[in-house]
C-alpha cells in the first residue's frame, strides 16, 4: 500500500524543464541546485589538480637531500598554498557540491531553500579562491603555513602581501561557506518529503546537517582571527604582537578553535557517503542508524573542546594539557562506534565489490590507522615528542586523503551515474583505485618513520642523515603514483562522459530517494513522490512484501 503523491508542496521553484543545451551564461546565472552542485564539484576537481600539482612539486624538492629544485621562498609558498587549497578549495567545495546535488534529491525536494543564496555562496567560494591564487601574481603567495601562526604572519616578519590575500581570500570563501551551511539547515528542516522524519533522512543528509552547524560555529572564529590580523597588518593594531602587549598564543587559540572543528567538517560528509555506500553494496540496512547519527552530534560537540591538542607544546601547563588530552581521546569513542557499525553493516550482508565499496573498505582500515595515530597524539607526552614532525603530516594525510578524499572518490563513483547519466568507467576506475591506494600508502606510511627519526615538517630541504634520503625518495615515488592515478581518473571521467555505459535510473539497486527520480532530473526533481515511512523509502517501494516500516529490526 504505497501512496505516491504529487511533490508540489516541496519547494517553491517554478516547474520548468532544464534545457541542457544552454550555454555558459545559463550556468553562470543558474540557481538550480544541481547545476550549482556540479559547478562546486568541478571547482573542487580543478583545485585538486592545482593542489596536487603543488604536492608533486614539494615531493620533487624533497626527493633527495640538499636539493635546490625550489628555493626556500618558493617551497614555503607552495606548501602553504597546498594546505590551504586542499582544505578550503578542494574539501569544502566537494562537500558543498555533493551536498547541493544530493541533499534535495535524497529528501525528496525540488531545490534548496534559498536558491539565490546558494548561487551567491558558490560564487563567493570561487572568488575567494581566485583572490588567494591571484597573490602569486601580486608579489608572492602566503608563506606562513596553512595555520599562519602569529607573529610570523605580522607585517614585520611577512611584509609581502601574501598574508593579506590569505586573510581576505579566506574571509570571502568563509562567508560563502556560512551561507551554504544556513541553506542546508533550512532545506533539511523544511523541505523533507511528506512523512520523512528527521530521524529518517539518509545518513549523508544527516551528516551534512551536523556539518552545517559545525561550519556555523567554527568559521566565525577563523573570521574573527582573520579580521584581527588584518587590523594588525593594515591599521597597526596589537592583537598578536607580543612586543607591544599582544599575544602570539591568542592566534593559535582562535585558529584551532576553528581548525579542529574544520577537520571534522571535512570528515563528516565522507562518513555520510560511506554510510550510503556500505548499506547499498552490502544490501542491508545500515547498522545502528541512530548511533551513527547521534555519535556525529557527539563528535561535533566534542570537537569544540579539543583545540589545545594542537598546542600541547606551547607550554600551557599540565592541567590544561591533561584536560584537552582527555577530551581528544574521548572522540575515539563516538568515532570507534561508527567504524564498528560499518563493519557490522557488512557483516551478514551480500557484498558487491564495486568501486565505491572498494574505496569504503580501504577507508575503514586507513581511517582506523590514522585515528590511532591521532589518539597517540592525544597522549600528551608522546605529542611532545612527535608534534611538528612528519609523523603529524602522516597522521593528517591518513585522515584527509585516506579518510575524507577516499569518501569523496567513493561518492564520485557512486553518484556519477546520477549526475551524468553514464557509469564511470569500471576498468579505468579499478586501475585508478589500486594505483591511488598503493600510491597513497607508499607516500604516507613511510612518513611516520621519517617523523620518528627526527624529520621536522615544513622544511624546504634536509641534511643527508641516515635513512632520510631513501625514505623521502620512496615517499616521492608514491606521490607520483597518486599523480598518475589522478590522470587516469580524469581520462576515465572524460571517456565516460563521451561514451560511457548509460546508467539508467537505478544502477546500484539503491534504497534512497535520489535513485527514485529520473536518471538526470530536469529543473524539477520529482513529479511524484512516495509517502516516506522508513529510512529506506525506495526499498519499501521495491519490496512491498517486506518493507522496513513493518520490520522491527531495521
Amino acid at each position, binding site marked *: 500500500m504505497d501512496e505516491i503523491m504529487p511533490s508540489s508542496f516541496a519547494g517553491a521553484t517554478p516547474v520548468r524543464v532544464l534545457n541542457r543545451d544552454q550555454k555558459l551564461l545559463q550556468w553562470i546565472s543558474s540557481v538550480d541546485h544541481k547545476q550549482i552542485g556540479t559547478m562546486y564539484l568541478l571547482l573542487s576537481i580543478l583545485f585538486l589538480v592545482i593542489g596536487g600539482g603543488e604536492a608533486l612539486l614539494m615531493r620533487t624538492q624533497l626527493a633527495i637531500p640538499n636539493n635546490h629544485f625550489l628555493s626556500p621562498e618558493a617551497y614555503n609558498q607552495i606548501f602553504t598554498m597546498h594546505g590551504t587549497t586542499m582544505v578550503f578549495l578542494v574539501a569544502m567545495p566537494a562537500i558543498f557540491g555533493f551536498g547541493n546535488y544530493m541533499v534535495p534529491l535524497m529528501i525528496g525536494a525540488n531545490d534548496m531553500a534559498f536558491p539565490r543564496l546558494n548561487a551567491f555562496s558558490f560564487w563567493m567560494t570561487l572568488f575567494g579562491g581566485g583572490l588567494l591564487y591571484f597573490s602569486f601574481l601580486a608579489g608572492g603567495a602566503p608563506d606562513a603555513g596553512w595555520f599562519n601562526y602569529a*607573529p610570523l604572519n605580522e607585517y614585520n616578519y611577512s611584509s609581502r602581501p601574501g598574508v593579506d590575500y590569505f586573510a581576505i581570500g579566506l574571509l570571502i570563501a568563509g562567508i560563502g561557506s556560512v551561507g551554504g551551511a544556513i541553506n542546508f539547515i533550512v532545506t533539511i528542516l523544511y523541505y523533507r518529503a511528506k512523512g520523512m522524519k528527521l530521524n529518517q533522512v539518509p545518513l549523508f543528509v544527516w551528516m551534512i546537517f551536523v556539518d552545517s552547524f559545525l561550519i556555523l560555529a567554527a568559521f566565525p572564529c577563523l573570521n574573527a582571527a582573520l579580521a584581527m590580523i588584518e587590523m594588525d597588518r593594515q591599521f597597526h593594531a596589537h592583537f598578536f604582537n607580543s612586543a607591544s602587549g599582544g599575544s602570539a598564543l591568542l592566534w593559535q587559540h582562535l585558529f584551532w578553535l576553528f581548525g579542529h572543528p574544520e577537520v571534522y567538517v571535512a570528515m563528516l560528509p565522507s562518513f555520510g557517503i560511506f554510510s550510503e555506500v556500505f548499506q547499498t553494496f552490502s544490501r542491508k540496512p*545500515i547498522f545502528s542508524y541512530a548511533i551513527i547519527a547521534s555519535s556525529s552530534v557527539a563528535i561535533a560537540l566534542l570537537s569544540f573542546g579539543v583545540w589545545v591538542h594542537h598546542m600541547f*607544546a606551547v607550554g600551557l601547563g599540565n592541567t590544561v594539557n591533561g584536560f584537552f588530552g582527555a577530551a581528544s*581521546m574521548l572522540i575515539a569513542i563516538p568515532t570507534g562506534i561508527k*567504524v564498528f557499525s560499518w563493519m557490522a553493516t557488512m557483516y551478514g550482508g*551480500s557484498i558487491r565489490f564495486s568501486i565505491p565499496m572498494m574505496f569504503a573498505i580501504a577507508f575503514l582500515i586507513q581511517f582506523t590507522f590514522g585515528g*590511532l595515530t591521532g589518539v597517540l597524539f592525544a*597522549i600528551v607526552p608522546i605529542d*611532545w615528542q612527535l608534534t611538528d614532525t612528519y609523523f603529524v603530516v602522516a597522521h593528517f594525510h591518513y585522515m584527509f586523503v585516506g579518510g575524507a578524499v577516499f569518501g569523496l572518490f567513493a561518492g564520485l563513483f557512486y553518484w556519477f551515474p546520477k549526475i551524468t547519466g553514464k557509469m564511470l568507467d569500471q576498468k579505468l576506475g579499478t586501475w585508478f583505485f589500486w594505483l591511488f591506494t598503493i600510491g597513497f600508502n607508499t607516500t604516507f606510511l613511510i612518513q611516520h618513520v621519517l617523523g620518528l627519526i627526527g624529520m621536522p615538517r615544513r622544511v624546504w630541504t634536509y641534511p643527508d642523515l*641516515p635513512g632520510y634520503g631513501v625514505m623521502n625518495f620512496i615517499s616521492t615515488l608514491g606521490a607520483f603514483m597518486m599523480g598518475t592515478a589522478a590522470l587516469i581518473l580524469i581520462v576515465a571521467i572524460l571517456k565516460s562522459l563521451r561514451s560511457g555505459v548509460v546508467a539508467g535510473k537505478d544502477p546500484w539497486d539503491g534504497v534512497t530517494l535520489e535513485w527514485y527520480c529520473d536518471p538526470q532530473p530536469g529543473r524539477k526533481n520529482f513529479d511524484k513522490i512516495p509517502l516516506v515511512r522508513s529510512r529506506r523509502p525506495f526499498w519499501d517501494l521495491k519490496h512491498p512484501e517486506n518493507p522496513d516500516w513493518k520490520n522491527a529490526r531495521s
Partner: protein
Amino acid sequence: MHISTLFLFQSVLHSASTQASEINKLFGQFTIAAVLLLLFVSLLIVYICIRFRDRPGSPLPEQIGKNNRLELLMFIFPVVTIAVLLVATLRTINRVMKPAEGQPDMIVTGHQWWWEVYYPATGVTAANEFHLPIHKNLLIEFHSADVVHDWWVPEFGNKMDVVPGRNNYIWLNITQPGNFIGACSEFCGAEHAWMRIKVFAEDETTFNRWQEANKKTANLPSDELSMKGMLMFQSRSCGTCHRISGTPSTASVGPDLSHLFSRSTMLSGMMPMNEKNLQAWISDPQNVKPDAKMPDFIFSRDTVNAIVHYLTQLK
C-alpha cells in the same frame, strides 16, 4: 663528505634522558595496544569480505540494522581502553613536566634562524651548539627574539615551543654522553629548515673544561692578517650585529662569534665550520643561506680573507 653523515642513525625511540625513557615506556605500551587493535579490525574486515561476498545466486541477506548487545559492546570497548590510556597519560605528564624551580641552567633564545645559548651560572654565551653535562637535573628556559620556534632533540624526549612573550622551560636529565642532533620544529620562516641543533652531552669534567674555555675573552689577533681582519670587522658594521668578547662588539642580532672556530658546524648545522665555508659565507651570505638576516657586503677578496683569517683564530 657532508658533515651530518658522521652521525649514527637517530630516532625518538632511542632514549637518552630520563624524560625520554618515561615517554617511550608509554609509547611502547600504546604501540602494542594499537597494533593489536589495528590487526583485529583489519583481519575482521578481510574475513567479512571473504565470507560475505556476493556470489551468483546468493539470497537477499536478512535485513537487520540493530542489535542492542553488540551496540553496547561497541561502546564499552573504546571507553575502557580510553580510561586506561588516560590514567597512564596523566601520570607521565606529571613525571616529565615538573614545576620549574631555581635558576635555569641554560637559557636558549631562538632567533630567525639561529640559537643563542646562555649559561646564567657562569655567564658563558655561545651560539647554535649546546654543551650540557650528563646525569644532572637541568632546567632549560626558552625565550624568543622574534617568532615562534621550537627546541627539539629527539633522543631527549619532549620538545618545547619558544614563544615570544613567554618563558617556557623543560627539565632534562641526560643519561648518555655523546653528540645529539635536533632541529627547530616550529615553522619560523624562510630558513626554518636550517635552524638545526647540535648538543654535546658530556661528563662533568669535560663540560666544565668547555665552560672555562668559553668564559675566557676572545683571542686577540696574533698576526698581521688577522689584525687587519679585526679592524675590518670592527669598521665594517659586523659589530652592530655580533658579539666578540673583549672587543667593542657586543650586539646579539647575530650569533656570538667569540669562540666561533671552536664549533664544529656553522649557520645552525648547515655546514661544517671551516675556512672555505666561512669564506663563502662572508663573501655572499644570501647565496649560502638565502634570506638569512645577514646582509650582503661588497668586500674585496683581500678583505674577506683577512676577516676569515681573524675569525679562524677565535677558538
